[in-house]
């Protein structure tokens, strides 16, 4: 009787560890199904390479096996991860699944792994050891969550592009999450091998992979206890069934699948979403100017008047359509430059090129010493560029404060490894980061909403949160894409004075806006775009008096003369300079 429970308890722990290997990548928004393959390779390798427990003793043998297994698992993950880095979503899932299957077939055909019969392994693992291992793994992920690294992973999951713009090296983070998954899967493989006494490639096949995924999803990947909850729940189902006297073999998989369906449709956060999620709010209010900010990594800014961005002949075309054509622009430190123009004029495309999101087709742009177009987005951010987006790209499921903390990625120190050791310097650095984030929130007037979820905020508050997040990286050049969209006059005026005060603090600001009055009141200089080209630049007074600008927005005062000359588009007799390119909807 007791031994029955002993096995069940061990399986709960093992199942949870396997689920953690999925959790490790799901946290970063990747769906990898190759963990079974990592576990398989690790299990067989460690089983064949491990020393004899009679010689070394049971536990030391297990430890050696674990080290071997985790190393093998991590290596396998790295080997799989590197070439598949570019893949997303479905393609990544399929590639990793194929890998797991290939491993299974390979092992099936090998001599040393015992072929289909499998390999026998001494039994060393007991419930205590299994739960100890589980505790270590859970601890790891517990400490990871609130660290700078863990937040970066979650940011990547929410919005990869925004994460890049905050300076996060997405490729490196994804690979490290992958390798972690491999190591954890390797641990599972070893423990499994040294518990069930006989391992065969079939044990790590497709259904095992799906089981692991199911556990991770049912448990939930938003909170570190998820995999444990999932495993406990799913392992209990057949036990309950047995206790109720239901014997049929099809019921368990049916119920497990039904549960998975219900969870994914109605409870996407899994069982873990039932647990209260405490969001940390800083105790400091953000105005202790006296602190020496030693926990933050300082940034150097150019002196006032020095060139920040230099654009020469910059252009972007999409299949014959020129979104931006031949733009020359110079921006100097401390300036507030407004970029205006009618819908479809190319403003966002221009700004996307400056911030490194889009590669120019022609011309050259140098921003803070970096040639954009050749440089990865996160490196442009590291050079001192920060931005908001036309359509809010907040990290929806993170709190306002966490959004800003991610924004401060570049200026805060990494804390994960020190957190594992509970070093107090880690806590100090995090406190610094929190206070810095609080200051940014306070600057835009959102401190009281720090613990609210970003997706729960009103539109105006979301726009302001984006600005706070962009400020957190202590940028030199701040780019705002339609920050006043949807704001009324009072809010727009407040935004205008915020921009002015940021400029006084030394920031250089470039912003796109349609609220022309606000632009006239806020900027030192205004650039007007139409049909992708600069049609006017100058001071607010000059621009306001410029009839070309008014015409660009409202249309010309005069009727076009000579309607009949030159043919018609409908008849195909009028040449049309605007090229093809369907669906240019609302791009400004």
């Amino acid at each position, binding site marked *: 009787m007791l031994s029955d429970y002993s096995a069940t308890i061990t399986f709960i722990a093992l199942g949870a560890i396997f689920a953690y290997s999925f959790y490790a990548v799901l946290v970063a928004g990747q769906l990898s199904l190759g963990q079974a393959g990592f576990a398989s390779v690790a299990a067989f390798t460690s089983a064949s390479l491990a020393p004899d427990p009679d010689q070394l003793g049971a536990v030391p043998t297990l430890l050696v096996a674990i080290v071997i297994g985790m190393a093998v698992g991590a290596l396998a993950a790295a080997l799989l991860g590197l070439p598949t880095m570019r893949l997303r*979503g479905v393609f990544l899932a*399929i590639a990793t699944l*194929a890998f797991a299957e*290939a491993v299974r077939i390979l092992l099936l055909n090998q001599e040393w792994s015992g072929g289909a019969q499998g390999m026998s392994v001494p039994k060393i693992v007991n419930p205590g050891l299994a739960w100890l291992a589980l505790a270590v793994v859970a601890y790891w992920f517990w400490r990871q969550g609130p660290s700078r690294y863990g937040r970066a992973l979650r940011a990547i999951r929410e919005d990869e592009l925004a994460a890049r713009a905050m300076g996060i090296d997405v490729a490196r983070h994804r690979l490290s999450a992958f390798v972690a998954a491999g190591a954890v899967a390797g641990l599972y493989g070893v423990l499994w091998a040294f518990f069930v006494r006989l391992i065969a490639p079939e044990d790590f096949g*497709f259904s095992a992979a799906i089981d692991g995924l199911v556990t991770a*999803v049912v448990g939930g990947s938003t909170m570190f206890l998820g995999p444990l909850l999932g495993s406990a729940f799913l392992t209990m189902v057949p036990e309950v069934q047995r206790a109720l006297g239901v014997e049929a073999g*099809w019921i368990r998989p049916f119920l497990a699948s039904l549960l998975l369906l219900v969870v*994914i449709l109605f409870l996407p956060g899994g069982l873990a979403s039932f647990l209260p999620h405490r969001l940390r709010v800083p105790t400091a209010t953000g105005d202790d100017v006296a602190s020496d900010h030693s926990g933050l990594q300082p940034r150097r800014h150019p002196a006032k008047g020095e060139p920040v961005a230099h654009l020469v002949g910059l252009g972007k075309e999409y299949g014959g359509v020129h979104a931006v054509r031949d733009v020359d622009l110079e921006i100097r430190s401390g300036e507030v430059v407004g970029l205006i123009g009618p819908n479809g004029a190319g403003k966002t495309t221009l700004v996307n090129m400056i911030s490194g999101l889009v590669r120019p087709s022609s011309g050259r742009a140098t921003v803070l010493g970096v040639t954009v177009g050749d440089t990865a987005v996160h490196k442009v951010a590291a050079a001192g560029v920060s931005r908001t987006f036309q359509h809010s790209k907040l990290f929806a499921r993170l709190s306002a404060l966490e959004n800003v903390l991610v924004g401060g990625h570049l200026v805060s120190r990494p804390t994960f490894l020190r957190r594992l050791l509970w070093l107090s310097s880690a806590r100090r650095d995090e406190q610094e980061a929190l206070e810095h984030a609080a200051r940014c929130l306070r600057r835009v007037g959102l401190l009281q909403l720090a613990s609210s979820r970003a997706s729960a905020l009103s539109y105006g508050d979301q726009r302001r949160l984006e600005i706070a997040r962009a400020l957190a990286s202590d940028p030199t050049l701040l780019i705002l894409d339609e920050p006043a969209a949807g704001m009324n006059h009072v809010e727009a005026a407040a935004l205008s004075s915020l921009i002015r005060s940021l400029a006084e603090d030394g920031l250089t600001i470039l912003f796109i806006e349609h609220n022309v009055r606000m632009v006239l009141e806020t900027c030192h200089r205004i650039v007007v775009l139409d049909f992708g080209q600069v049609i006017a630049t100058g001071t607010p007074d000059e621009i306001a008096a410029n009839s070309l600008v008014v015409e660009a927005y409202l249309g010309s005062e005069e009727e076009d003369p000579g309607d009949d000359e030159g043919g018609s588009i409908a008849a195909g007799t009028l040449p049309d300079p605007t090229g093809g390119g369907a669906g240019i909807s609302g791009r400004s």
Partner: protein
Amino acid sequence: MQQLLNGLFIGSIYALFAIGFTLVFGILDRLNLAHPAVFAASAFVGIELVESAGMSIWVAIPLVFVFGALLGLVIERVAFRPLKGRPDAHFAGLISSIALAGMVIALLQWRYGPDTRRFPIGAFPDVRLEVAGAQVTLLQVVILAVSVALMVALTYLVTRSRLGRGMRAIAENPTAARVLGVNVDRVTATTFSISSALGAVAGVLFAMNVNSAQLGMGTAIELKGLAVIIVGGMGSLPGALIGGLALGLAEVFAVQYIGSSWRDVIAFGLLFLILLLRPQGLLGARRVREV
């Protein structure tokens, strides 16, 4: 020559299965992982129709087609429609279709038990033909003919009919399709239905070809189907066809020359290579989804 023909027969089944897969992915940008479960279910249903209802296999095939069509409607309604508009729709769709597949397989186990089922003796006509020095059965010829006929019909539907225009419009720009008055929900459901019907016929034909149906047959073909559509190009119907035939031929020749245990690795090798070098597949024009 014998091998060539064998490869074509099995390849045409792969192609039929893969076309259903790629139809939904191409039009609706959703990977329906319940498709292999339909494949397996229809094999069992086909056997039951012949065995218990005493039908001939020629009648069973169209009935299985209908069964698949209905199952496709259920899959769309239960696993995909509720996820419309959710930001994680792609990921959630994978999971929900996996879940539904699990439920279907479990139900199959309940109804038919865990063992392999076979067609009753005498269900297949014992007619053999000789083609260019190789032996083929009438059954195999019919399999090839049915597969080809369905694929041709599908191509016609997609390129010439009103429904096909609607499907292609949705594939390119669902918003534009809606503004023109296309009933996107109805066309989506119909697409799923057609896709599953094709997968169902593939399943019963496969069962006829090997005279057996097992619970695991869906899983076995799933990865091959994925390999075919990725190599051929996600969303490309000709790609699925060519890919399926190529895989069938490659497998048959691999078994002959390398050994049967390595047969399945061919599919994965190709799959991996294509994913790394040309993710949109040989004939695919779709942009690989970024994030």
